[in-house]
């Protein structure tokens, strides 16, 4: 019973949040600027969580996320903008294309270790960008225009929730535990009979397809795609969200994505110093909290309850004085 209780609470909170935001948007209480930021937060959460699945939970060091996102974005945009087919098909094609690319990239490169994999996947991302720049069918450098705007709050909300649910269930399944064992010690995992290549590739493919989903949403919200948007700096931004939130913490990725997106929005007003401050924060957070805000912990109702108890406790002790 207790188990279901927390699930129900979470569902309720999410439902209230969903409805409240929808009402806020409808009534104009949340301005267009905040809606954009909200959607951007959503897209970033998907990106950060899926990168975390690869980097945090499986312990592979991938820097190819911008590439997967670009594949998802462009393939879905071809479906809707160039071929005029319906949007749901575009979502499927975008995710599938990214997943297949993930498989093709993952199979050979996941044999590599650590930084070598990082630099190889980074290279893959750059290759995708250069290739896109040279395909006239998708507009080359000037980009793909006229993509229909399809993204609204329910779509973003459910994409985020379903992505997080998928990753969470994957991690908690036997597959996920196998992935964790690969991260902790792949040699030992192999000796215990875990097919490490299979699990590495599996996590990689799921992560890639979700990055593809983020790309689909990106394409159908901003309606303009240019290859230069998908440079390795984008992957770095996502990596920073993962790092700030905590490598190996799903809720951490959510926190990281929210914090970084909002912080970046707030620094827009001080253009000259914006990147300097951002960089300084990055160094400070890496040096003083290398495990990220949450480390490998998850935010759950339990912790919130404790936190609530603590707050009550402090109030109580104040009264005692």
């Amino acid at each position, binding site marked *: 019973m207790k188990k279901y209780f927390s699930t129900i609470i979470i569902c309720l909170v999410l439902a209230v949040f969903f409805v409240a935001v929808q009402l806020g948007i409808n009534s104009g209480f949340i301005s267009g600027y905040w809606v954009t930021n909200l959607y951007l937060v959503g897209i970033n959460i998907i990106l950060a969580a899926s990168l975390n699945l690869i*980097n945090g939970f499986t312990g592979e*060091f991938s820097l190819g996320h911008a590439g997967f996102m670009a594949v998802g974005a462009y393939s879905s945009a071809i479906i809707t903008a160039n071929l005029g087919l319906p949007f749901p098909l575009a979502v499927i094609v975008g995710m599938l294309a990214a997943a297949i690319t993930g498989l093709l990239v993952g199979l*050979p*490169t996941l*044999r*590599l270790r*650590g*930084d*070598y994999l*990082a*630099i*190889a996947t*980074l*290279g*893959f991302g*750059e*290759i995708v960008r*250069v*290739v896109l*720049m*040279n395909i006239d069918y998708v507009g080359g450098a000037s980009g793909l225009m006229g993509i229909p705007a399809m993204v609204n709050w329910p779509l973003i909300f459910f994409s985020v929730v379903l992505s997080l649910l998928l990753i969470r269930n994957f991690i908690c399944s036997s597959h996920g535990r196998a992935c964790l064992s690969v991260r902790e010690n792949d*040699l030992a995992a192999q000796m215990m009979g875990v097919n490490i290549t299979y699990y590495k590739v599996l996590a990689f493919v799921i992560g890639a397809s979700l990055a593809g989903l983020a790309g689909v949403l990106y394409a159908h919200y901003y309606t303009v795609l240019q290859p230069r948007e998908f440079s390795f700096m984008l992957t*770095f931004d996502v*990596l*920073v969200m993962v*790092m700030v939130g905590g*490598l190996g913490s799903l809720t951490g990725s959510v926190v990281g994505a929210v914090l970084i997106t909002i912080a970046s929005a707030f620094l827009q007003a001080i253009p*000259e*110093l*914006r*990147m*300097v401050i*951002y*960089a*300084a*924060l*990055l*160094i400070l*957070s*890496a*040096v003083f909290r*290398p*495990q990220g805000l949450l480390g490998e912990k998850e935010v759950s109702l339990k912790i919130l309850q404790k936190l609530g108890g603590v707050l009550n406790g402090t109030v109580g002790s104040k009264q005692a004085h």
Partner: protein
Amino acid sequence: MPDLLQQLLNGLSQGSIYALIAVGYTMIYGIIQLINFAHGDVIMVGAYVALGCALMGLGLIPSLAIAMLTCAILGVIIERVAYRRVRPVSRLAALTSAIGVSLFLEYTMMYFLGADIRTFPAGFFPERTYSLLGVTINNKDLLVLGTTLVLVIILQYIIYRTRTGKAMRAVSFDGQAAQLMGVNVNSTVAITFFIGSAMAAAAGLLYGIYFNTVQPLMGLMPGLKAFIAAVLGGIGSVPGAMLGGILLGMTESLVAGFGGSMYRDAVAFIILILVLLIRPTGLLGKGVQEKV
């Protein structure tokens, strides 16, 4: 035929600059297994310092010396502030920190000096062009090639003929064992950053003269390419970095010269991925046994 020769020569100069940057990369990676993304930006700082010296009327050699010294100190500071605490905890955090340092250097420079391209004053390096067998050679080509060769030879000497070099090799082989044998790991790492960053500054000056541009984001692409060169040659190996840099420069030049200029950057990465898949230790790298 002269065309092909000209293309190879074009690549040789470009490659020597890659090589000089790659040398620093490979040393730092070899010793602490960190992709020092800020290395490219140290090049940029070096170019700016040299430019400042040039504008104050100093000659080539004093400018080079001051730039190398400044960047060497900068490298040590970067290691001390941004990497030392993080390195043992998490490599991903160290990489994040490196990205942070990279952005910090770029945008601090942009804040103070603007995003404008700057150039070395005319006459700082008097240029001459020679024509030989249908091939044109500029004395800048010779300067770049010569400087790279001299610096790499000095570096080889330091690594294989001095006590410091011995300590560096020991730490890169096995840090813990080296420490047990009485090597001061921290100061050895600091010295590696000192030397690697000085090389970067030299590369920055050469790059600045060769292409006549100095700007805050100049280090980004060459930095990345140099890392590819380092992997290509075998990470941790100084002659490997030199070879990798020159090979990469020549390949790029041939690709760009024979119709594929748009794919120049992609080809660099394709080479990288192929090398990693076929021979992860690079051309001159030693195989590393996985320790259980």
